């Protein structure tokens, strides 16, 4: 029998988040889409191992994460060959300014060790709890916490953020606050 329609809808609803995870993890849209595709195939093949009532999104993220790691081990040199062509084939018309910043940030993210990168994305962006992230990464909660902390510290170094000001002054509110402070 096929999977229930409701299940299919739920998987469909998860796709934007699953894909965002894949893109930030791998740093490349093409690669991310391959990962998502592979994840869907695996999810269908192993649909019986999903326990109804548990978190479907976490289940799919786990599959994708494991898939990425096994490829990462095999093709390490390719993964680390960051080419910065990230924004090329995004489908939504970009707001150029923020797109540039996202590109810079995404680039910095790929410079993190994989353990730290996945922990930070899961907790800091995907909205998983430390506990859920620990389950997805198959490690202790304390390990996730320390990876997230190290990831933040490393990102601050890479992006040279010593204070919030280092993101550059912009926006009227920002300017207003700065000027109020200097008085």
């Amino acid at each position, binding site marked *: *029998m096929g999977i229930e329609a409701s299940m299919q809808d739920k998987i469909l609803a998860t796709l934007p988040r699953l*894909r*965002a995870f894949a893109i930030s993890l791998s740093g490349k849209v093409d690669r991310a889409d391959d990962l998502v595709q592979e994840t869907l195939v695996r999810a269908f093949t192993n649909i019986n191992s999903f326990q109804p009532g548990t978190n479907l999104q976490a289940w799919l993220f786990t599959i994708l994460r494991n898939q990425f790691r096994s490829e990462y081990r095999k093709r390490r040199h390719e993964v680390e060959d960051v080419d910065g062509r990230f924004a090329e084939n995004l489908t939504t018309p970009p707001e150029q300014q923020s797109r540039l910043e996202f590109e810079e940030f995404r680039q910095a993210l790929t410079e993190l060790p994989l353990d730290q990168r996945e922990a930070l994305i899961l907790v800091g962006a995907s909205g998983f709890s430390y506990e859920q992230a620990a389950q997805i990464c198959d490690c202790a909660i304390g390990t996730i916490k320390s990876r997230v902390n190290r990831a933040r510290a490393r990102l601050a170094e890479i992006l040279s*953020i010593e*204070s919030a000001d280092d993101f550059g002054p912009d926006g009227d*509110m920002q300017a207003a606050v*700065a000027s109020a*402070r200097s008085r």
Partner: protein
Amino acid sequence: MKGRKPGKAGQQKMNIADAPPYGSGTLGSDVQDVIGKQLRAMYDDLVNQTVPDRFKELLQELNKRKNKGKS
């Protein structure tokens, strides 16, 4: 990074002059905050991208195959 539009992205900014230096082992909470907000902004932007149609088609195809294989 300069000249960013105010609003969506601008709201993530904070102005905190007294951050401790990075590399001292502990990260100032304001720096953590900036990084956290930048990360979420980048991620949310990705979440809002249109998902290629081929995934929906793939889902239908997978389901069809599963129906055939097991019924």
